[in-house]
């Protein structure tokens, strides 16, 4: 018996052993805790008992193995915990059965200590993953229904009779398995050694089973995950492992997804941590595998046949067995476990699972075929390292180049790629679809204060019924996806910060504003790391809440709301530190938020705004029906349900109003895509649908039967019908997004041929492959270097560098002031002009969804004598090639710019013949430079750029009125490098530290026990 500071029951345990009718029973108590009183307590009941000190061991198995070091001789060992009470005939029955059945291990029927009529364990079913589950139902009444001897995959270590020779042969328990799964490991090894594992139900043993309360350590999930994987790695055959491990990873991922949905991020860490734990012990695992091979008498396949088919974990989950008797474990897991025991919660989890499956199924083609590089779904570089270096080097190639930092989301994606084994494709898919799951978790959390699991479940369903995410996916609007995912977190954070209604603290505890604001800020800040424009949802939500408080005549919490909004904004700013510093050091620009929009009126109308029809696919009129559940909490809600509903409605009205006014061209400045502006209203709609359920639960009970009661089923029908358009989108498996992008449609010459060049992109802001700058009406422009832009090019730098040169040049062409635009653009390194009229090339996009380039704009470019239209391109684009282009870095005769003071001088003074040199992108570019030439670098002048020829630094001077010419003494191997300012790198490092700190802090906050 392994004893660990046993409680008051211990004497009863000892008594049960002392009163056994088996005649030759000796007791050896292994003290695993160094309990000074233990020996006395044992001797007091059984004077002949031996007490071994094994306080230097950790875990049950290692302590039990202490018996191997003794000279005790016996045919059988009864190994048991110190919290069991055996029926007087238990040992005898087990020994008899062992002899009769030739079993190596015999287990008894374990019943609950206090309620012996309730079964606790009667043998364990174990699947290929080492996961054990009882054959009985939780707290099942013992009606002798299991009273027949049977073989099992394992029996609990609480009490097991083991043949002593077998125990010795196997070397006892695995000492590295401290607690849990030691029974499975031991029984599997015994079976491989040729022994049967059986249960003799006639032997009854009462069992307390309260390890956590005694150790004070909540490590059930962690230890189980680790030890199950260890057991599989040691006992399974190699071919079996090839299948088992991938399946195990799949299951783990699913479990992690569920955990994320429940906000239980610790669980994610624990289940994935099992892999690292076993990897660190890989040598030891190999040794045990080799040792096991020597003892093996049965084939793996024979043992496998005794294993449960499928996944015990899944079937147990469905049966509701997981989570029994977990007093004292962490809050999140306890909540999950407790919830699953109820029917409502089980439905909730099934719905959550269904919603996840819905998203995955609806995105199946995007997952399998990849997300096309269109709109906001920028292409990734070929290597994750490129992304990291683009983030680290502090120079932006886009437009005409400028110092600036790529948003750190790019670096996070690079790290994620490494964590996922370098699979950039998978990371890219997760980058697009992953936020939806974060949004789901946000919805779950947002509706948790309602105290209604049904409301939370309704919220999950509403999350996929609202057309916005699918419209955003179909429109290639990554910003809208991130905004929609972040909005529930922001709404939740601000509501909790207000601390009123269901968000009020329980008892006398002061309401904490910091924690919810921190979590909301981290959520929004993380989204902003990938799409800076998402920050607009914060003021929309805050203004909506302010209005809601006023309209519902409950302005309490307004002060806290203002402070919390500022806090969230501060956290977002801190998380975006390098960008904020860039904005401070350069002229503040609104362009980063406007995303290429000038504030001009667009064709988006109110109907589309209200229906979230902001993408190519129109959800149709059925979506109006979701207005019914939205109205429900307003009509029937009372108390905080009504107040919250008013606030949610005000958020809707605020967001819709901003989108409508923006579409009407009322604002003198540009705002982000309408899909981003309506993200907060979309999340508020989700909240309203959850509140509708909460209102139905709370407020219909007390209302007299009448029209209100008719509203609830009406709302259900309305939502069901309203969901039909979304369900219809499932058909393609890609939410209406075609599979093609412009990579193969653009006839771009590789830069290696003639040197680096720029591409001038013109089109509607939502169609450009990068964030643009306003050009005319609803058109934007952007310039990128060498071929299709990648993610790092997507974001507008705070410092616009010399970008105005392009705007000025284009303005002259639009005014009819030049017919030699190509020469001017050539002086800016622009080789191609690409006009995009659709999100995707034909036939993957419809003409109906095209935004035509204004004829005047086409006319202005078509009229240029040095721009040749590339014929035969896809109908969605117009491509002009500049016949007078100059490479971004070119070698020219010294004094090449004589008489050329400004760009416009190029119209009458052509640059002499140039040769493209130093092709490439980034902050370190090298290549041969011809002798007797100057190197013209067509990018924003910056003193941190230096050209060295064979190690000798070249002098530089201004050229063409905006660029830089380097004048090396002679030719040779040139190296053009950018020295990143130290402060910028310090800012990046600071941001990383802050990011990690805030992540840890907010994760802890999420896991702290809630008062609600």
């Amino acid at each position, binding site marked *: 018996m392994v004893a660990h500071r046993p409680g008051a029951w211990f004497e009863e345990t000892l008594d049960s052993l002392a009163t056994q009718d088996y005649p030759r029973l000796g007791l050896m108590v292994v003290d695993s805790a160094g309990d000074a009183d233990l020996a006395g307590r044992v001797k007091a009941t059984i004077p002949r008992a031996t007490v071994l000190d094994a306080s230097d061991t950790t875990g049950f198995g290692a302590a039990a193995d202490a018996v191997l070091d003794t000279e005790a001789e016996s045919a059988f060992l009864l190994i048991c915990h110190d919290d069991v009470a055996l029926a007087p005939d238990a040992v005898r029955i087990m020994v008899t059965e062992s002899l009769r059945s030739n079993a190596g291990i015999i287990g008894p029927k374990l019943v609950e200590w206090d309620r012996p009529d309730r079964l606790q364990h009667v043998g364990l079913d174990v699947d290929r993953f080492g996961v054990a589950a009882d054959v009985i139902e939780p707290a099942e009444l013992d009606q002798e229904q299991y009273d027949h001897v049977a073989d099992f995959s394992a029996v609990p270590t609480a009490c097991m009779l083991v043949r002593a020779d077998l125990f010795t042969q196997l070397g006892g328990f695995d000492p590295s398995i401290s607690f849990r799964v030691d029974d499975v490991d031991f029984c599997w090894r015994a079976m491989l050694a040729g022994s049967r594992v059986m249960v003799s139900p006639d032997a009854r043993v009462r069992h307390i089973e309260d390890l956590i309360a005694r150790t004070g350590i909540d490590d059930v999930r962690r230890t189980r995950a680790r030890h199950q994987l260890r057991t599989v790695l040691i006992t399974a055959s190699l071919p079996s492992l090839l299948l088992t491990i991938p399946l195990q990873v799949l299951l783990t991922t699913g479990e992690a997804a569920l955990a994320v949905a429940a906000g239980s991020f610790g669980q994610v860490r624990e289940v994935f941590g099992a892999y690292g734990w076993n990897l660190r012990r890989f040598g030891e695992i190999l040794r045990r595998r080799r040792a096991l091979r020597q003892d093996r008498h049965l084939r793996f396949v024979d043992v496998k046949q005794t294993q449960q088919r499928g996944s015990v974990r899944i079937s147990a989950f469905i049966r509701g067995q997981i989570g029994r008797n977990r007093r004292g474990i962490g809050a999140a897991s306890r909540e999950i476990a407790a919830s699953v025991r109820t029917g409502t919660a089980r439905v909730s989890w099934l719905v959550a699972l269904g919603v996840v499956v819905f998203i995955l199924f609806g995105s199946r083609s995007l997952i399998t075929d990849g997300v096309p590089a269109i709109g906001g779904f920028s292409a990734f570089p070929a290597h994750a390292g490129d992304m990291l270096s683009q983030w680290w080097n502090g120079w932006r190639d886009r437009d005409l180049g400028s110092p600036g930092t790529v948003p750190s989301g790019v670096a996070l994606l690079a790290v994620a790629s490494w964590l996922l084994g370098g699979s950039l494709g998978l990371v890219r898919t997760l980058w697009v679809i992953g936020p939806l799951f974060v949004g789901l978790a946000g919805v779950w959390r947002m509706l948790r204060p309602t105290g209604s699991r049904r409301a939370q479940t309704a919220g999950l369903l509403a999350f996929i019924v609202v057309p916005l995410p699918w419209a955003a996916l179909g429109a290639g609007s990554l910003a809208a996806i991130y905004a929609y995912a972040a909005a529930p977190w922001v709404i939740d954070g601000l509501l909790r910060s207000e601390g009123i209604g269901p968000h009020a603290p329980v008892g006398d505890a002061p309401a904490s504003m910091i924690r919810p604001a921190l979590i909301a800020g981290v959520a929004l800040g993380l989204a902003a790391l990938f799409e800076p424009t998402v920050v607009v949802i914060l003021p929309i939500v805050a203004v909506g809440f302010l209005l809601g408080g006023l309209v519902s005549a409950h302005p309490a919490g307004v002060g806290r709301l203002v402070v919390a909004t500022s806090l969230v904004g501060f956290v977002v700013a801190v998380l975006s530190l390098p960008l904020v510093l860039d904005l401070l050091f350069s002229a503040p620009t609104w362009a980063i938020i406007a995303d290429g929009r000038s504030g001009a009126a667009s064709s988006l109308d109110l109907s589309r705004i209200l229906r979230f029809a902001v993408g190519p696919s129109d959800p149709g009129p059925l979506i109006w029906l979701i207005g019914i559940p939205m109205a429900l909490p307003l009509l029937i809600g009372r108390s905080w349900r009504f107040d919250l509903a008013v606030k949610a409605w005000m958020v809707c009205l605020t967001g819709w109003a901003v989108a409508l006014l923006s579409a009407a061209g009322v604002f003198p400045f540009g705002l982000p895509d309408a899909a981003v502006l309506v993200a907060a209203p979309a999340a508020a709609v989700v909240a309203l649908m959850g509140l509708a359920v909460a209102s139905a639960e709370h407020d219909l009970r007390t209302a007299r039967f009448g029209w209100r009661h008719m509203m609830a089923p009406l709302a259900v029908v309305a939502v069901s019908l309203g969901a039909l358009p979304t369900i219809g989108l499932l058909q393609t498996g890609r939410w209406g997004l075609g599979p093609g992008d412009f990579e193969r449609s653009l006839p771009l010459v590789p830069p290696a041929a003639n040197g680096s060049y720029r591409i001038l992109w013109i089109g509607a802001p939502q169609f450009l492959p990068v964030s643009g700058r306003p050009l005319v009406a609803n058109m934007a422009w952007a310039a990128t270097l060498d071929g299709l832009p990648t993610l790092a090019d997507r974001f507008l730098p705070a410092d616009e560098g010399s970008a105005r040169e392009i705007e000025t040049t284009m303005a002259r062409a639009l005014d*009819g002031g030049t017919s030699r635009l190509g020469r001017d653009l050539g002086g800016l390194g622009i080789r191609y002009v690409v006009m995009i009229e659709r999100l995707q090339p034909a036939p993957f996009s419809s003409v109906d969804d095209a935004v035509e380039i204004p004829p005047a704009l086409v006319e202005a470019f078509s009229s240029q004598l040095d721009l040749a239209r590339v014929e035969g391109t896809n109908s969605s684009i117009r491509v002009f090639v500049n016949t007078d282009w100059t490479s971004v870095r070119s070698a020219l005769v010294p004094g090449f710019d004589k008489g050329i003071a400004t760009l416009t001088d190029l119209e009458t003074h052509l640059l002499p013949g140039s040769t493209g040199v130093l092709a490439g992108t980034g902050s370190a570019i090298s290549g041969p430079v011809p002798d007797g030439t100057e190197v013209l670098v067509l990018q924003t002048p910056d003193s941190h750029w230096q050209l060295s020829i064979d190690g000798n630094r070249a002098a530089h001077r201004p050229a063409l009125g905006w660029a830089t010419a380097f004048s090396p003494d002679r030719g040779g191997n040139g190296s053009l490098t950018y020295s990143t300012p130290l402060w910028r790198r310090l800012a990046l490092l600071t941001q990383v530290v802050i990011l990690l700190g805030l992540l840890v802090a907010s994760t802890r906050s999420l896991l702290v026990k809630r008062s609600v």
Partner: protein
Amino acid sequence: MRTIRSLTILFISGTLVLAALFDRSRGAAAVLPAVAASSVSFAAPGGSTWFCPGGSGDNGPARVGVEVVNAGSASVEVGITAMGSKPSSDPVTDTIAIGAGGRTVVPLETMIPDDPWVGAVLETGNPDVIVDQIFDGPTGTDRSPCITRTAESWVVPYGATRIESDGEQMVLLLLNPFPDDAVVDIDFDADVGLDSLSGVVAPANRVTAVDITNEVTVAARVSAIIDVVSGRLAVSRIQTYNSEVARGLSVEAASPGGSPVIYLPNVELADGRTDVLSITNPSDDEIAQVDVEIVAETDVPLDPIELTIHPRRTVTVRLPDEPRLAGLDKFTLVVRSLSGVPVAASLDSLVAPDGDAVVGAAAETGADVASKDWLVPIEATDTGRADVVVVNPSVDAVARVGFSVIGPGGTTRISTVELGPTRRTSVTASELGGSQAVVRIVASSPVVVGIEAAGLTSRSMSLGIRTGPAVPFSEVP
């Protein structure tokens, strides 16, 4: 609670209703105003590129030169690129300098010798530079402003090809100043029937001459609609008459597309003179209902000439045959498409030797925009005459029109006239101070300006050159 609930619902409903009303009343999406494919040449503030489709080389029917006029007070440099028609004729580029108020004629045959057809592109960053093409051939002389824009569609409303019987020859000149070849389809509507020419290649940086005389033979009237399938072009027409009853040379720029309203300022009825109005409907499928209004210098109200023009068809009106015009001397025609279908119009004038007027041919493309600022280079011999015609297209605004003459010494204000709504006036070159003057016309409201000049043996007429913003007639107050 009930009150708050009701008020809240009212507030939300009211806001949504207001939003709907706002949405209904708000304007359309912002669009970049389309640049009118105007038939009027334009000297832009930042300088223009002048496309001169050109004419023939030495010994051709219309030997061409370009006259560069510097209406400014400082000398300017103009880049000229001459282009020939032969594959071996590579473009030749040169830069010419012109002093303040000066004029320079560059015979293109000197830049591209031994080429039957030559054209040019002139580039300048100076808004005071204007460029005319001047022609000299066996049948007469002519001049017309070079075109300041290229287009993908052109219309030539009138021409004649009875070369054997009446010595009529019609040649289209296609100037492709771009680096890529252009391909054009041409549809003809002639009194002898319909015809077409497909897949005509206009090589890059070349002039392509299409002799319609060989394509649509023996036509007393032929119009051409030129659709540029690939690329863009500048197009003009050369028409020669060489018979006992008619002799002359006229060159006119083609019309880029069409317009719902077109002004033809220089119309005259005189003995021996035959003015022919030609209106083409370039639409593929829309019928144009057109009224031709008469703007005379008298107060006599005249009924418009009502025309129906089918898609891709042309209607010609011999003005001397119109009884309602009897008694009129000089007037202006306004072609107004009542159905809004854009049409193109031109006026071809031919003076027979048996009359009192100066013999010769002239042609004028109709103006599709008005403007407040114009430049008109006058080129008349001492023995000839030149009339500058100004028309006020406004129906209710009085235009105060100032005439100034630009010379080497600067600008001299000559006169100011007030022009009533829908009225025209003409000023002779002599009143404007000379036969070689460059006249600047500045009006208080948009006007249309044309010029007709007659020498001893030939005549010409054309529109002025716009230097101010274009104002579509629909926007004229």
